């Protein structure tokens, strides 16, 4: 009965309740949709970062990351790669050869990182092969194929099948040059990655830098279950303690931070919206309570306990808040579902996004956990907003309240 009265009380003044419910609805819609949009944006960046650029785990010689010395190879790299590939939690392994070099076209030149890979093994750790709109993945040219990023192609002003000259110091310290031909141009939506990383066949790079083809500077590991990332990283680090074993969160801490602080940012943003709405809810409930002092006095006079009066007013506030909250959340989820298929194209407003590694086509996502947290925050807002008006109502003595002329 008390919950029924609380619900009916909300609709005593339809205009006033309607206004605050509309405000909550709009506020929660803005909060939820911004959150699903931002979450989609973060997830896309993480997905691109992990599945296209870094993969789950990488193993290096401990000094390799400091100087990129071609002699800093992984001890028994081929054997290690073979062992890891046999582990039941591993999805794919790709041993790589890595060198720093200068790349030049007939127009201009720039510094790049050359990754010597086995294309078939590489496909088991990264999905880069699915992001080649022009040409093929290290195939389709007779000799020395090279896969370059779209951004680098634009910078060097080269096209498919154009010739590029790579100059580097080989393992003996000699400056050597060799010509490569563009077999494909990849596009991952991260301008920095596209500009800095080129892929060649591991056998071509080995010959070029005068190292054995089985030599590896980098072993890339893709796990079957990403949720076991930390656990399996520790396991590999323990087993191969002569090498540096790092997962993507350790190698690209900015991605890890994005993941962890992204959620905090979303909840903080929602909390700020709810805080401002909370003042509106308190004001509305205060008006509602002050109009009903006489009635509340009567309820206490006939024997309704203070706890029950408090509970009734709290329910009233919570129901008012949840009504607007649910409408806003449903609207936000609805708009998210409507846009998650086609995505939201920001390229017109933010051309530079891709240079930072963020896609300009954003696909919002709904996460159950996020919705649950938002509903909880709405509920908490309702409860907190009810305390002041309810306490105010209980301050009146029944005998005085009944005689107040409204």
């Amino acid at each position, binding site marked *: *009965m008390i919950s029924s*009265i609380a619900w*009916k*009380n909300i*609709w*005593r003044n339809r205009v006033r309740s309607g206004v605050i419910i509309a405000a909550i609805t709009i506020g929660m819609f803005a909060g939820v949709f911004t959150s699903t949009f931002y979450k989609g944006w973060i997830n896309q960046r993480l997905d691109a970062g992990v599945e296209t650029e870094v993969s789950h785990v990488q193993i290096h010689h401990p000094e390799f990351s400091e100087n990129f010395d071609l002699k800093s190879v992984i001890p028994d790299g081929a054997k290690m790669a073979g062992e890891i590939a046999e582990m039941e939690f591993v999805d794919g392994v790709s041993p790589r050869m890595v060198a720093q070099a200068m790349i030049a076209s007939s127009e201009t030149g720039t510094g790049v990182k050359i990754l010597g890979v086995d294309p078939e093994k590489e496909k088991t750790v990264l999905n880069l092969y699915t992001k080649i709109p022009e040409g093929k993945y290290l195939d389709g040219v007779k000799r020395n194929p090279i896969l370059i990023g779209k951004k680098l192609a634009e910078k060097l002003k080269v096209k498919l099948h154009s010739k590029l000259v790579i100059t580097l110091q080989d393992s003996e310290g000699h400056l050597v040059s060799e010509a490569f031909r563009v077999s494909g141009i990849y596009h991952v939506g991260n301008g920095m990655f596209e500009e800095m990383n080129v892929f060649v066949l591991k056998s071509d790079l080995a010959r070029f830098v005068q190292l054995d083809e089985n030599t590896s500077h980098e072993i890339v590991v893709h796990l079957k279950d990403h949720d076991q990332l930390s656990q399996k990283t520790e396991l590999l680090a323990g087993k191969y303690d002569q090498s540096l074993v790092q997962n993507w969160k350790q190698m690209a801490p900015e991605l890890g931070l994005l993941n962890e602080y992204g959620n905090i940012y979303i909840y903080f943003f929602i909390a700020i919206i709810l805080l401002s709405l909370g003042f509106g809810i308190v004001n509305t409930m205060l008006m509602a309570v002050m109009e009903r002092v*006489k*009635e509340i006095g*009567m*309820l*206490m*006079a*006939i*024997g*309704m*306990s*203070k706890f*029950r009066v408090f509970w009734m007013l709290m329910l009233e506030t919570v129901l008012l808040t949840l009504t607007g909250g649910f409408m806003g959340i449903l609207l936000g989820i609805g708009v998210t579902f409507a846009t998650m298929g086609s995505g939201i194209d920001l390229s017109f407003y933010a051309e530079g996004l891709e240079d930072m590694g963020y896609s300009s086509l954003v696909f919002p996502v709904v996460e159950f956990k996020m919705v649950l947290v938002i509903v909880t925050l709405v509920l908490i807002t309702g409860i907190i907003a009810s305390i002041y008006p309810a306490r105010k109502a209980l301050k009146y*003595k*029944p*005998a005085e309240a*009944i*005689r107040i002329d409204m």
Partner: protein
Amino acid sequence: MNVIEVKQLEKIYNDSEVKVYALNGVDLRIEEGEFTAIVGPSGSGKTTFLNMLGGLDQPTSGFISIGGTEISKLSSSELIHFRLHNIGFVFQAYNLIPVLTAKENVEFIMQLQNKPKSERESRTMALLKEVGLEGRENSRPNKLSGGQQQRVAVARALASKPKFVLADEPTANLDSKSTENLLEIMEELNRKENVTFIFSTHDQRVVNKARRVITLEDGKIISDVRKAILPQ
């Protein structure tokens, strides 16, 4: 059997440095089944006295016993519980819950008492029939006349099976026909079911119906007259 027993009741308000005696040594006994009016000019202490009897206010000194319980010693929460089970209230301005129907208003007090649904429903329907509102159970207060609303209030007051009903100026907002009708209903409830009614009133029609009239002045009972000697 005494329903109410009051001894040397005092209520003093401290207005600045001047003591104001709202009630000054009131002694009274009201027995079960009485139909009593408390009258007196404004400021005589009627409202204060009713608040004391209803457990809505605490006396400065003195003794109030209702059905053998000394309510002047009860805490605030004990008083609320006591009122719920022992005292029925009828207010001048009806004070029904506007979002509830007549039936729900009457039933509400029994819900506070945690009575089972079957008992609540049967008693509610019986009470609404007794006050002549059969067929109007599902009307909200704003669809009822002032007289009908006050009859719902009487039914609500009786719903908790109280030891007595306190009615504060129950006819003040009613026209003469509604007043007559309400008084007849309350008189019949008193006569048939031995319900004890105590009114505070200025209304001569209520005074005429009452079988006992207590007059207050300056916080003291100056007369306590039984119907047998009332002028008709």
